[in-house]
């Protein structure tokens, strides 16, 4: 990938930010944390020397934002404990999204990989490179997630999935 100038880089980020943000919402289950993570990733994206080594801006943004979300979760662990009884009004749109219900059944790592694979269309090779795992590790994590979903869905007799298979 040839080096992009500021304008081209901005265009590339704009083209993918919405999809990345939706994937982040799916991964962390919170719009607020997903937006925070995306902003951190955008800050990182504008640092010198970044764009030269980024092959896929969407994949890179997703990975960097997830790291930022994880760090923020660690920083806010006490705050979460203190405020967890004070229920904020949940994002109404999220509650209606059945895909998020599905994703909640998975481990964080499985969620991240499933979204990368099936929503951002990353190949297993790209996932392996971004998360510094082996290709077989990425494959098996996704396969385990699928198997887990299937087990849960078969128990729940979910209509849409039965129609699909």
């Amino acid at each position: 990938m040839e080096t992009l100038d500021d304008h081209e880089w901005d265009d590339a980020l704009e083209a993918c930010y919405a999809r990345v943000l939706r994937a982040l919402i799916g991964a962390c289950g919170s719009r607020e944390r997903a937006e925070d993570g995306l902003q951190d990733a955008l800050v990182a994206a504008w640092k010198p020397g970044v764009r030269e080594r980024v092959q896929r801006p969407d994949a890179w943004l997703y990975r960097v934002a997830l790291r930022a979300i994880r760090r923020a979760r660690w920083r806010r662990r006490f705050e979460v404990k203190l405020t967890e009884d004070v229920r904020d009004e949940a994002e109404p749109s999220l509650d209606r999204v059945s895909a998020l219900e599905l994703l909640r059944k998975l481990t964080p790592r499985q969620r991240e990989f499933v979204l990368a694979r099936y929503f951002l269309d990353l190949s297993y090779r790209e996932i392996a490179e971004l998360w510094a795992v082996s290709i077989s590790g990425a494959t098996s994590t996704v396969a385990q997630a699928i198997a887990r979903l299937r087990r849960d869905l078969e128990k729940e007799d979910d209509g849409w999935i039965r129609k699909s298979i």
Partner: protein
Amino acid sequence: MDSEKHLGLELALENRLRADLDALTVRPYAYYREAAMQRLAAKPGAIGRVFSVARVGAAIVVAVLFALAAAFALLNLRGPSPAASPTPIPASTTPPASSSPTPTSSPAPLINVAPTNDASVPVNSTRSYTATISNLSGCVDLAVVDANTYPGDGTFRSAGNGIAELSSDAAFRSVNGIPVGATGGTGYFSCIAIPSDGRITFTIDSGTANAFVRPVVFFDVSDNNRFDLDANNRPTDKPFGVGGATLFN
């Protein structure tokens, strides 16, 4: 088929993710870009970064100092490590009560080795001894000396440097009933734990005709795996006990 089901589920999942997540509304890119730029502008400058680095460095130094202090305290609690043993200790012996054994203060510690009479046994046969240890905790060393080097006046022959001359003509064949040194045995045992009844049994043998030896059981005061003598060739590793001489013929 399972694989078809698997693929079907993958496709269904992909469709569901796209349908549901794509339905989420997002703010315009300019909003996030502006927020990112503000954060970028609010980042600490060169001086701030230096302070950050200094803070992290100070934290690391403090952590290292704590680790060193903890390691030092731990080492002090454990005491000095014992000297390497020249010979293995039988696996089933009880570990010593302390790594740096010390005789109890009173009454006087004592080691007796029986039998004390001289005897002859055929070459490659064994002779059994029992060391009875009292008022002593920790462990003792076992050695074999040439019987002629112990005239019975309390002195041993020195090998120089204040160390008693040991014999290699005979070897220990078992300690506390456990066979040792299946091929040739060994003439020295370091730090055999003193059992609660204070009795250590052992056997010696020799493949050398006319080997004339005595076993010595002693408390290795300096923990150097040597039977130390003073200027008059009297043991400084006390207490010690000497068994009766055995002639292999």
